[in-house]
């Protein structure tokens, strides 16, 4: 759906690259225009833009971020950035948990997976932060189950782990001015759900795939 890159998106990507001085390493796979879900650790507002900017531009044009609806629809500017500039897939964060009973939770959860699956469509890729929220960078929180269900729903899509290092020091949660330190972004080897694999085991394995890409260690 988003074949053309919005000029503001390109501008923000260039700024994010400059501020983060990011060095990109494709350690487990190569850039490819096949459909993928890039999933990474989440510590900073820069995470998505830096990861997105690291992709070649023809892949960038079909790669959309998955983001929290409550946050990104709060102000007109955020809404504009999310919807028009980056064509984000906005989801109701944590809503299965808020449901009155497990049936309803199941229903809402299914709904979110369907939203992501239809955003993938025929040719799009997604950028997903399965922790669901930004952490401090010391350790990666446990993953939400969306990644697992989406992987089962779309087994044809490659799951690529990525580790964003040092961005928590460049623009941590709660700050709005960045410190221009250097950062690293490592793409790892794609993973798959093994047939019959249980949800929690897969999610832990996915988390491990991300954290094993850490290169310098905790700051």
């Amino acid at each position, binding site marked *: 759906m988003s074949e053309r890159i919005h000029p503001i998106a390109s501008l923000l990507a260039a700024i994010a690259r400059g501020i983060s*001085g990011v*060095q990109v390493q494709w350690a487990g796979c190569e850039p490819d225009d096949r459909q993928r879900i890039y999933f990474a650790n989440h510590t900073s507002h820069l995470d998505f833009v830096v990861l997105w900017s690291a992709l070649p531009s023809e892949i960038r044009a079909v790669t959309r971020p998955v983001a929290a609806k409550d946050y990104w629809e709060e102000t007109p500017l955020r809404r504009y950035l999310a919807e028009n500039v980056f064509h984000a897939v906005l989801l109701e964060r944590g809503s299965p948990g808020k449901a009155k009973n497990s049936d309803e939770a199941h229903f809402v959860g299914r709904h979110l997976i369907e939203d992501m699956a239809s955003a993938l469509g025929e040719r799009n890729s997604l950028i997903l932060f399965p922790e669901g929220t930004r952490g*401090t960078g010391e350790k990666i929180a446990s993953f939400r189950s969306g990644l697992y269900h989406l992987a089962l729903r779309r087994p044809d899509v490659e799951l690529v782990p990525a580790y964003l290092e*040092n961005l928590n*020091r460049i623009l*941590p949660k709660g*700050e709005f*001015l*960045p*410190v*221009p*330190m*250097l950062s*690293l972004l490592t793409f790892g080897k794609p993973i798959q759900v093994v047939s019959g694999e249980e949800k929690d085991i897969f999610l832990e394995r996915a988390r491990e795939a991300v954290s094993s890409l850490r290169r*310098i260690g905790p*700051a």
Partner: protein
Amino acid sequence: MFEALRDPKLVWLFGGVLSLLVISSVIGSILRNRQKPGTSRTTIDNLNARIRAWWKMCAIFTTAILVGRVGSLILFAILSFLAMREYMTLVPTRRGDHRTLFWSFFVIMPLQYYLIGIQWYGFFAIMIPVLAFVFVPTSIAIAGDTEHFLERAAKIQFGIMVCAYCLSHAPALLLLKIPGFEGQDARLLLYLVIVDQMSDVLQYVWGKLIGKHKIAWRVSPNKTWEGFLGGVLSATALGTALWWATPFTPLESAGLSFTICILGFCGGLVMSAIKRDIGIKDFGVVIEGHGGILDRMDSLCFAAPIFFHLVRYYFVP
């Protein structure tokens, strides 16, 4: 722009640098071709990579000097920024240092270069050692995290001192009003950089050729007495031979270039100790492709402020 080219002595200096680069490139390729297949090539590949990097650095530096005072100032401001970026990335800081670091990068460092630009010597000399010294620990204290407080304040202050304050003394040479040397100050900056960097290069070359006895093997296994003495003496000889480009007599030039070489060595040694402490080999190695600006500048960081003050004390009335 390019007014500098009307100064024949400056053109001679540039010509000298250019011929050195050509000669070293020729030597580099001869060594590469003479290498027997199958033997280890790392030293020679490393040498050729260094020579290529030198071509680029000299091109950038020459352009900056040709643009004039503002060009040199902007170049050194960028070098300070890149050096400080490498330093702060690798030195452990905590979340509570964030705003202090923001100020260091975007206010203190640019202000230091702005003060050179407006030629306000008095403020330039005290801004970081006095004002930033008070500001850094205060702003960390306000952020409220007291864990490792003294270490964090000291590490940040040291980084600002080395990367912004010390390095800024190189372009600050353009502030000095030496009688009879008006309008030729670009050569003084070039002299400092040539002697300092050639001292590094010659220490490396002498060390590779005849180096045996280690000076401080715990800190820097590559530094040997042979490399040190050979490098310092030959770079001092080079500096002495360049007296015609400076306001100095040959004897003064010998003394000053010897000082530059010794201090350059001290800077390299101190930075090696810091790298050892953090647990890395080069500031540029962990972040590949970001070339280790601080690894190149470490000797200049120590040589520039002392050279500046010696010249100011003895040659500026």
